[in-house]
């Protein structure tokens, strides 16, 4: 099962999330499979922290995302550092009456320190 990296690159006075895939651009989603691992590399001179958000880019409240949560993406990442812990791309559970989780789903995230910095991960069940 693959591991993936998302770069946090300087962009327009701020930063942008760019999947480390040839040809990827700022804002492109990262495609990943269930239980793939994702990490972020901070290539800027500022601290960043990927943080889960709603589909309208509202950050989830801290109390909904403890460090042990499946939604927790990373600790704050120092300038020049890489993320910790690794993020395991988990398939959402089935929503009754469905008996299996979605074949594909999207994880929205922002930078907790810079909410205008946004990214997505598209998860695939297989």
């Amino acid at each position, binding site marked *: 099962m693959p591991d993936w990296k998302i770069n946090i690159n300087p962009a327009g006075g701020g930063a942008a999330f760019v999947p480390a*895939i040839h040809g990827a651009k700022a804002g492109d989603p990262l495609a990943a499979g269930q239980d793939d691992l994702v990490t972020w590399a*901070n290539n800027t001179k500022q601290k960043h922290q990927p943080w*889960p958000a709603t*589909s309208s880019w509202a950050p989830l409240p801290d109390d909904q995302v403890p460090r042990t949560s499946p*939604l927790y993406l990373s600790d704050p990442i120092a300038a020049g550092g*890489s993320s910790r*812990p690794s993020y395991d791309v988990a398939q959402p559970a089935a929503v009754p009456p469905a008996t299996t989780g*979605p074949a594909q789903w999207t994880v929205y995230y922002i930078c907790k320190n810079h909410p205008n910095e946004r990214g997505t991960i598209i998860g695939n069940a*297989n």
Partner: protein
Amino acid sequence: MNRIVRCFLALSLLVAVVLPASAQRRRAAAPAAAPAPAPTPTPGSQWIACLGDDGTTVTLPVIPEIAAKDGKLRGNLLLSDAQERIAFRVPFGLGVIPGGSGTSIKCAPNYVRTFQAVDDKGKPVPGYPPQTGTYPDPMPGPTLRARVGDLVQLTFVNQINTQDFGDSIDRGEKNTGTGCDETGNNIYPGTTGDTYPDCFHGSSTGNIHFHGTHTNPNSTGDNVFLEIRPSLRTNGKPVVTPASVKPAFDRFFAECAQKLQVSVLSEWPYAWSDLPLAYRTAQEAMLKKYDTTPNIKKLWPVDAAQIKKGDWPQYYIGAYPYCYRIPDYVQSTFPPPAPAAGHHTGGPLSGAPPRALQMGQSPGTHWYHAHKHGSTAINVANGMTGAIIIEGGYDDALNAVYGTNFTRNAKVLVINQLGVSPNLERGIQGVNDKGANFSVNGRINPVFNMYPGEVQMWRIVNTSGRASALFAAPGGAPAGLSWKQIAQDGVQFNSVNFNSQHFANNSFLLAAGNRADLLVQAPANPGPIAVTAQNEVDPTDLLAYPTPVNLPLFTVNVTGSGPAMTLTTTAPAFPPFLIDIKPSEVTGTKVVTFASTPPNATPTTNANPAAQHTINGTKFNGEVGEVVLMNNVEEWKIVNQSYGPLISHPFHIHINPFQITEIFSPNDTLRTDNGSGTVAIANNSAVVTGSGTTFTNLSPGYGLNIPGQGALTVLSVTDDFHLTLTAPLTVPPPGSGTTASGLTYTINVPRYVFVNSPAPLAGQCYLNPAADQSTWKPCAAVSQPPAQNNIWWDTFPIPSGITVTWSGNANGINIPGYFKLRSRFVDYAGYYVIHCHILAHEDRGMMTVVEVAPLTSPYSHD
């Protein structure tokens, strides 16, 4: 399940976009001829085309070499990282049947750590194949080629970009966190039971283990306690390069050559001060700079304390000079005559009596790999392995038969299970997975040519971090090919084994770490021939499969023409130091016990611990586990107390090879028979009902293989038509709900039985499970290897144990498997290790230190 529920509670807020199925299509194949333009990512698909998906033939790449010249193996071995096209078997979770139906290979661009041969400017040496896709394909580390007697003088440079991976920079040294790598959602270390230092960590730190070498385990030799950090960087560029250390290392290598010239047993350097001043100054400065990183334990104080005590310091940054001799045994007899008084002492201790080299380096196929505790599994899976070819009389003899450079033109076949982070760090945790499919020289099922009738030498190295490759099973050499095995683990066979039918066209097991040399002859008729292997970590794995799967290793394409050749019967002269170890040589014995607990069985506060792996009841903690006096010969009983899941832990010892004198495998199968009649089964029931069956021919411990059900074990037999298994069937029979009937089956007839009635069959042995442990040993027929012509190994899978259950004793009794070895602990004092070569087990604690104590004290008694 809790994880999924928790995931649902929160992620249900987020799941908003479900892309159409069409978006899941695979990315178009990249052109094969030249590097392709970067493709546009396809949202929803993480896969890219694999090499060969476009129909082109995947040829076996020739691995570039660093070859010795004028008695010195000089070169730059660069540890770096790259985003490569890595092949994965999908879907995950069917790993219990690698290559089984429903599985396929897909590729993804993933960052991996790599070994590469580079010149002094840091550029790859000639010989690397051109890149054919957007991403480079994996390539093992360069083959190191030297000759017995040569000096190894390698410049090791670590330029890993730590940003290409999650934060795993020897987190164990940091003051915060668990010290282990971490995966969110409490996955890792989570409830696995792993604690620092016996957990996955430190995967950007490098070193080299020269697996199979008989040499100095200290300082700049085969020293696996070294930790060489990645170079510091300025403006994103590594500051330590081959060029930056070249002046200092050139001086060091020159002095090292001079010091090691004194005697074949000379060792040098001894102390930090023996390293060049410029290197020491730079190392101290870089370590101190590294130590300014927030929230880390400082490294330089550790080195400084070791230096003050006269110990060899363990932490370095960016580069390290490996310098040691590959000893050449030049005597014509064994044991060697004692050197004349006044001859070199052969060691660092002044006043030590003269001594002679007891064992030379066996010429043959050896290998090297990363050996940083905590990250050997991921680093080896990334591809940080390579072959070491040590030439000698063995090569000379074969070249005399087949022509100059015959052995240099041998196919070097580096098998690996390439991949990235260990399964245990993922949500699925993969406890039943057997690892990735085998690759050969970084390719899945590559092709190479032989002409009709041609004889080639194949040097096969299983560098996999997990699985054994049961080579060419069942039945041995595939139709058309003929072969004879001529060496094991880099040690040539003597003339008897060289021409033994036992090693002709044989199937053989290459556990993780094993090597084999073959002489192979192509058939007269052209055409492709598939060479396959079965993936196992225990022989019982294969019994559990409905049909063992033959995974493709490579394909031989028989084509063209050339001069007539034959498989020689002339064995190379056998070095005298490889004479069998006699019982009378043994001066000490030990029992070393490897053990695995099953998942969920450890009585800890963890709710769901993973299997735990120990040696002599403890995990690796740096303490010395076994002490031997140098130049003594010992016999060790290597015990395996793993009863389920069954694991044949591959035992490996550094520096000295060993011979095996006894093997006890209580799970051995005598043969497999077709069952008479048919059987009916029901889900959640342990009862099997027969029709036309003769179950009274069976007894407890026999195995039943029912299609779709895997291997089952008989607990008791009621009559010819009813028996009970040791566990209820938990998988619904396919296609018919909860019952199935009319099923054919086969019977695994065990070598060992645990009831005396009916009487054991010919070839079977009765082990008294409850009353007489003295019966827990091999059948007489298999208890002893030949009195001579023994094989040398450095890695051997320890047979797993068995839990014997019977009616009225459901808990059963555990009978461990074992083998006995004899080894000469000769020539080199110091610290090295024994460990399981399933490297995730080693990382998680299944390793201990062996101390070989010097023969003399450092004091004079004049």
